[in-house]
Structures are given as C-alpha cells and as structure tokens.
C-alpha cells in the first residue's frame, strides 16, 4: 500500500499535472497552464499545453504561489476578501492572484505545496486544480497524451534529466520556451535549489529572444544589454540554447544547476540525439 506523500517531488508534481490534463481533456475544457509549487511557493513543475494563451503561464504559477504563501485556496481568499482581493495586487509585485484555481496541497495536516491552473473559467480552473490535488491520494498513475509541441518538450526534458542522472551530475532545472520566449515546460529535479529554475527560464528566454546561445546575447548585441535593465529576463550566461527543428526556429531551452559551461554541454549533447539543432 502506498502512503500519502509528505513532500512534493518532481515525479509527484508530474502525476498532479497529468491528472489535471486528463481531467481537462475528459471534460472538454480549454487547454491551459498547469503549475505545481513546493511548500515555499517555488515551481517544481509547470506545463503549458499547445493552444493555451501565453499569459496563462504566469497566472498559473502565481496562483499556486498564492495558495501556498497565503495558506488557503483561492476560493476561500475570494470570500474572505469579499471579492476585493485584487486590491492586494499592489503587494508582492502583483503576484497575489486571488482567483479560484489556486489550491494548497494538504497532506498529513499541513501544506506541502500548491497547485495552480489558468486557462478556463474560474469554475473550470478550480475543478482542474482540485483534480490535481486529489491525484496525490490515488495509487494509480494518470497517463495523459498531450499535443505535439508539449510532448516534444517533455521528451527533450526527460532526456536531459536522464543524461544528468546517468552522468551523476548535479541536479538541474530545465526550462523550455516557445519561439516568443514564453514557457512551455519548467521542471526542477529533486534537490536542485529553487533558484536554478528561474535561472534556467531566463537562459531559455535569452536564447529564444536572441536566437543564439544565451551567452552570445552580449557578444552580438553589445555589453550594455545586460546592464540596461530593459528586460529583467536577459541572462547572458551559458546554458541557454536556441533550437531549430527541420530547419525551423522552434524555441529555446535553458538549464541551470551545474557550472554554466557544463549546462551548455549537457544541452548540446542531448539535443543531438533528438534531431534538434542549436542555432549558433
């Protein structure tokens, strides 16, 4: 007999996401973004399905963050703030997202993480997020088939994690973004520090935005790029790669966790196996 987990690991986070996707598909709900965070509110796993609006990504993540850091479901916060929760948005750089679809993961009488969904109506978001939380109480696994782009991203990230594990490298965070730099998938391996996930996302964004290795953002476009603060995501550090598939630019990938050069090497080695090309 399996027991209720007392910590959200990457594999549990993926089970939660699969359960949410399965629920959404069974009930013919719109594709959206699915986020699972740990008890500090930091992303462990995030996926955005094909066709989901890019803006839903950060809404899903911020919903999960809100549920954890406010220790309450979005539905409760909505009621206790009497529908005026949006006023609190001036706090925490606008991250507080007091809308249904934000659920704390409660197990063993405490909050061990959070689930966020964005992409449908408030009612649908709530139902999907509930389906995610309830998955940790299920023994069976939820296999969910996803659309082409997300399934490619999943394959790529699985290969990266496998490579890192096989070579006994330090655990990493993986970020895969689309051609507009918006996240499709964010995974943080167990024991990878939570800061690595934001680094990975920034590297992926930088690679995608400049269609080159992330460190080249400085080389090609001048040293001031990193210091002008025009965009807080610019991170000209090795470990971000812009990807081509069938000679077409498809997005970027970033990883963080090891020395930057090592991160870059991991990506370059792995994408070869899957017929992606790096844009140099």
């Amino acid at each position, binding site marked *: 007999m399996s027991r*209720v987990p007392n910590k959200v690991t990457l594999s549990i986070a993926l089970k939660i996401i699969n359960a949410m996707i399965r629920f959404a598909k069974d009930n013919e709900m719109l594709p959206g973004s699915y986020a699972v965070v740990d008890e500090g509110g930091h992303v462990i796993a995030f996926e955005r399905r094909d066709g989901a609006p890019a803006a839903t990504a950060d809404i899903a993540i911020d919903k999960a963050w809100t549920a954890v850091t406010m220790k309450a479901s979005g539905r409760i916060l909505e009621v206790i703030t009497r529908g005026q929760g949006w006023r609190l948005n001036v706090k925490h750089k606008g991250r507080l997202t007091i809308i249904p679809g934000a659920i704390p993961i409660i197990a063993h009488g405490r909050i061990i993480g959070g689930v966020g969904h964005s992409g449908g109506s408030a009612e649908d978001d709530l139902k999907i997020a509930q389906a995610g*939380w309830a998955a940790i*109480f*299920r023994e069976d696994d939820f296999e969910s088939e996803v659309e082409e782009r997300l399934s490619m991203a999943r394959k790529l990230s699985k290969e990266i994690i496998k490579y890192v594990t096989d070579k006994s490298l330090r655990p990493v965070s993986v970020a895969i973004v689309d051609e507009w730099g918006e996240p499709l998938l964010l995974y943080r391996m167990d024991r990878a520090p939570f800061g690595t996930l934001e680094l990975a996302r920034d590297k992926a964004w930088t690679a995608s935005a400049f269609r080159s290795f992330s460190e080249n953002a400085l080389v090609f476009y001048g040293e001031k790029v990193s210091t002008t603060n025009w965009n807080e995501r610019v991170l000209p550090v090795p470990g971000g790669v812009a990807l081509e598939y069938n000679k077409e630019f498809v997005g970027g990938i970033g990883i963080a966790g090891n020395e930057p050069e090592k991160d870059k090497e991991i990506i370059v080695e792995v994408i070869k196996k899957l017929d992606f090309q790096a844009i140099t």
Partner: protein
Amino acid sequence: MEEYDVTIIGAGIAGTSIARELSKYKINAIVIDKNNDIALEMTSTNMALVCQGGDSLTFRPGTLHAELNIKSIPLWPKLTEELGVPFKRIGGLGLIRNKSDYMKFLKMYTRAFRSSLRRDAPYYISENEFKPLQFLDRKSLKDLEPYISSKVLGALYDPNLSVTDPIKLAKALAENARANGIEFLLGNEIKSIEKNKDYFIVNTSKNSIKTKFVINATGINVDKIAEMVKARDFTYVPVKGILTDFDEETTELFSHQAFYLPRLGDPHVRAVVPIISGGLRVGIYLDFVMRTDKSLPSQGLRHNLNVIGDIIPGYPFRKHIKRTFFGIMPLTNAETGWHDFIVDIPNYVPRWINVVLGPAGVSSAPMLGKKVVDLLMMSGVHLEPKPNFNPSTKRGVGNE
C-alpha cells in the same frame, strides 16, 4: 448478454435507496456490487445518525447537501415504519462553552429558520413534522443529561435528531426492492465499461451486461468508475474517519447526541451518539488518506477518548472500549471544507448519473432515490408507476 434499462453500480445506502425508489415503477433494473453482501463499506462505518434535523438545517442553503438532507426529514418515520427498521428520536445537543459558541449557534439557528422553518422558506418543513429548536440553559441541560461536563454552559437543543441502523436499513431497502422486481448481482466487480451511442456494456468480473442507463453509486470509487467512460467531472479527496464504540454499560450515561463546534486549527469532529444497539459511539478523528489505507493510527483512539472525557468527565471510559474502527468517505471541496453532494448527469455523457455522498449521506437516503428518479425522467426514461408495489414485503438478497 442480459439487457437492462437501468444498472445501479454499488449496493450501499445510496444504491439500495435508489433501487427501492425505482422498484415503484415498471422498469427493468439491476444492482451490481463487488462484495457478496449489501452495505459492507461506507454505509457500515459512520455515526449512524439520520434525520439530522437541526444539523441539516445548518448546511449551507442552496447546496444539494442541504436540499437532500432537509427534504428527507419528513420522510424518515414513514420509511422506517414501512420497512420495519429501528428508528429512534434521541434529540441532539450543540454544546455551548463560551460566548463565541453561542454566537455561532445563534447564527445557525437563524439560518435554519430562513431556509426551512419559515412558511416561505425554500425547503419548508411543516410544524407537525419538525419540532422547534430551542436554546437550553445550564439547568435544563443538566436535567436532560445529568453527567455532562460542568464546562458546558448551555446547548442548542434539537428534538428531531434520530438514529437508525444504516446496515439494517440498506438491507431492508434492498430486500424490498428485490421483492418488487429489482435484480441483484453481487460479488461482481466492475472491470470495464464501454460507452456506445445508445447503450453501455458493463463488464464485471463474471458477467457482461447491456444497459441503457448507468447510476454510479460506488462510494469511494465513484471517480474511478466514472473515468472508465470519461464521466468524471468532479473531484473528491478520501478522508478517513476513526470512531470508537463503547460498550452497553455506557448507554445509561448519555441519551442524546451531543457535539462541540470545531475549533480553529482542529478539523476533527467532537461528537457522541448513543447508537441504537446500545452503547456510545464517539469520534471522529479525520485524516486525508489513500483510499486503500487500512491502518488505524493510535491518535484516533486518543482523540476519541479525549472527546468523551470532555463531554462526560470522570468516567473510566478506557475500560469500556468495545471497538475502534474507521470509515473512508469522499469529501468534495476538501480544500475549503465546503462539502457538497454530487447527484448529476455529466456534461458530455448522457444516460449516466454520478452519485457522490460522503458525510451526512445516510441521512439523505430517502430523498436521494427521488432525486435520481427525477433525473432519469428528465433524461427521457418512461417511468410508469407499478400498481402492485408493496412497500413492506421482502425477499432475500446476498450470495451464499
């Protein structure tokens, strides 16, 4: 392959009360259960309360939870009389320890008045079917319950609250349904269900059945069965409740159901019920668990001893423990605590009804059957009343 109009999956209190209601009509229906007998799961492990008079009036108005429970109140005496099932009005006491408790009970009292006791209320119950609630001071409470703790300052008294034996009731419902023409197929676990345009094929471990309608009343496994045909549009979390029964010698200590309001940060139920077969039932220690979890943590008994010691201090309850046991029930909206029943047809799967009850499920049984019959009629089933329906005859169900 056998063909039926309606297949009810699950022979607990939900499945049997639906079957009994359907047996009043000319319809070809069958009840399937994986166990070899009736009511072996959730129905047998609960507080055994029914007709939760004042309790149900305080459920949030507008929910199915409130509707089914309140509308069931007037139906209980007749139903149990027809079936010859024990039913006893014991009355309930909401215990007041301080002003905050009093204010909360006052709020509930007002809510009950608005939802059911006023003549224009949405679930109006007439006065001869429902005795009014009243607040008791310390002295009148002592007259009712001489051994009650001196910490209790008063109570909200509900004379309507009753107890029954849910297992006997489910069996009687099933036996009456069978006598009136509903078939039972026990010891058949559902393996798969195929969805076709006009019918379902239900494959069990031993049989295959073709059916036009399916009523999924499988208790804690409703979600798994519903997923077989993509009919799960709800979510619940399994919650385990640990209860303790004390032996018959404790019967004379307490004659009413009594409970404390939950405290902030303490989700466990603190209640005592004199059960109909004698002795006190105390609980409930709650925990979210895997549905197959069979463990019985010691915190459960410790909590239950604390509860009874709080309500009736100074009695050696530890020496009178009969058994400690658990039940697992589905809790919807568990993250907010706003539990509600689900008795509905999913958006994309017609001819299918999901039934999720959970806490206060037994209490809602009489109305549940009627609600499902309504849903079937809305889905276009032609239900013609049977002229020779006999509300009291019985015919045995259950595998040898």
